[in-house]
């Protein structure tokens, strides 16, 4: 399909790291049902390294592909590196996304950050909250014109 790159289609048809981690060390969920996409990232963290990652996504093809690619990009990486992952890097790794689908890569970046934040919170690790997006509100994402 011309709509998406082959990379996107590969990650959509064969998503990596789909699923749930029971007793995950950090869980992040962003997006909402009204907007039509929710991404949930589960992290297993050992010694500040992401030893395992899984995702669940409700959303369009590029949302699923972005989740898949993002999890691949942070798997086995130190948290510090995972936190530098930008939505642009996700989109580039997918050989690009159509302009109106860029927000899917934003969700992926935000879901990871939310999961790390959750890990910090759970473990009483202090961090600079302003460095993390506020992913709870629908207004924040700004990609819906209604609802």
């Amino acid at each position, binding site marked *: 399909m011309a709509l998406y790159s082959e990379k996107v289609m590969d990650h959509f048809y064969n998503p990596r790291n789909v699923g749930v981690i029971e007793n995950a060390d950090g869980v992040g969920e962003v997006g909402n049902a009204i907007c*039509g996409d929710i991404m949930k990232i589960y992290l297993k963290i050992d010694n500040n390294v992401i030893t395992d990652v899984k995702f*669940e996504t*409700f959303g369009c093809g590029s949302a*699923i592909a972005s989740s898949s690619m993002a999890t691949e990009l942070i798997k086995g990486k130190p948290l510090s590196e995972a936190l530098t992952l930008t939505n642009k890097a996700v989109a580039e790794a997918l050989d690009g996304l159509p302009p109106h689908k860029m927000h899917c890569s934003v969700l992926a970046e935000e879901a990871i950050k939310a999961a790390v934040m959750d890990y910090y919170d759970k473990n009483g690790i202090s961090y600079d909250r302003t460095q993390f997006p506020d992913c709870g509100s629908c207004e924040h994402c700004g*990609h819906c014109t209604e609802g």
Partner: protein
Amino acid sequence: MKVYADNAATTKMSRASIDAMLPYMDEEYGNPSSLHSAGQRAAEALQRARETIAKYLGCDAKEITFTSGGSEADNQAILSAAAAGRKKGKKHIISTAFEHHAVLHTLKKLEKQGFEITLLDVHENGVISPEQVASAIRSDTCLVTVMYANNEIGTVQPIAEIGAVCREKGVLFHTDAVQAAVHVLIDVRKQNIDLLSVSAHKFHGPKGAGALYARKGVILTNVIEGGAQERGKRAGTENIPAIMGMAAAFEESCLAMEENNAKMSAMRDRLIDGLSGIPYSILNGDRFYRLPGIVNFCFEGIEGESLLLLLDQKGIYASSGSACTSGSLDPSHVLLAIGRPHEIAHGSLRLSLSVYNTDEEIDHILKAVPAVVEYLRGMSPLWRDLETGKRKHILK
């Protein structure tokens, strides 16, 4: 197996339609405005096509204006009625919330020019009543425009009854019959229709041709200005090949209407029955007042685009709402209009059939859709929340 189940978006051309076009693409290429015989043969062909279209709409050939498609016909119908209304100081138009964008966006344009637009509620079943129209008509209403059948959910409206109401109240009545044509019996006189739009590529005719019926006495204003084609009401060299293809397709499908509808609705009903078995799903639009070819479901917990892409992988060409708005992030205005919440509207699937579909194809769809829905639900955090009771199901 490839299954084309997106016939509400566009259809395969019939052999008869292609064959009707070819001679006019090849040897008979004259311009009907030319005086010489090559031109006059084209003019005669144009006239034959006009008579054919008129015959199956129940009107005079002179009441048919050829356009480039359904959108142009809708634009012209509405702008013409509005221009006539403006002259009389009547600037109120009644329509419905689930019209095609060709209608809604034209109404929005008129709104900016000072028209007042009333969009009737279409209810959960996607059917409006003549009483709603009657009670919305005011002394300054210049037009009622209600689609004959909806392109996303396939519901058919009580057009003859609405026509009667409008005629009685002396208000012009337009209907967008782009989806209904060749599937319902249209008789513009009996049904008191003043303006009606059709589009060839929706009934196995070519893209690039549409027709606007305008009752004698209803004055059209030009959308396209220029030469004196179409009695001065639509400029531009006539697209003779496409018009010939349209007339052939229209005639062929109108003659076979009963047979085609029977075949299609049997397939449609198998789809409805089969897909209803998927838990937490719902059929959109009235089960009975519906076109023979359109089935539209919402499945809770999943999103439509990913559903489409996976069906595509299985060779099934389907749609989620209308083709024109796919790619947009907003859920279908039609599904919102029948009251589906956003999160449900996002999970929609439209399967639209034609007479070329087969029972084997329906079997294939009925195997594929439940599997794909299950797969997507399996990776959906929304579905997990529904299943674990963290969220309440909206559908049953």
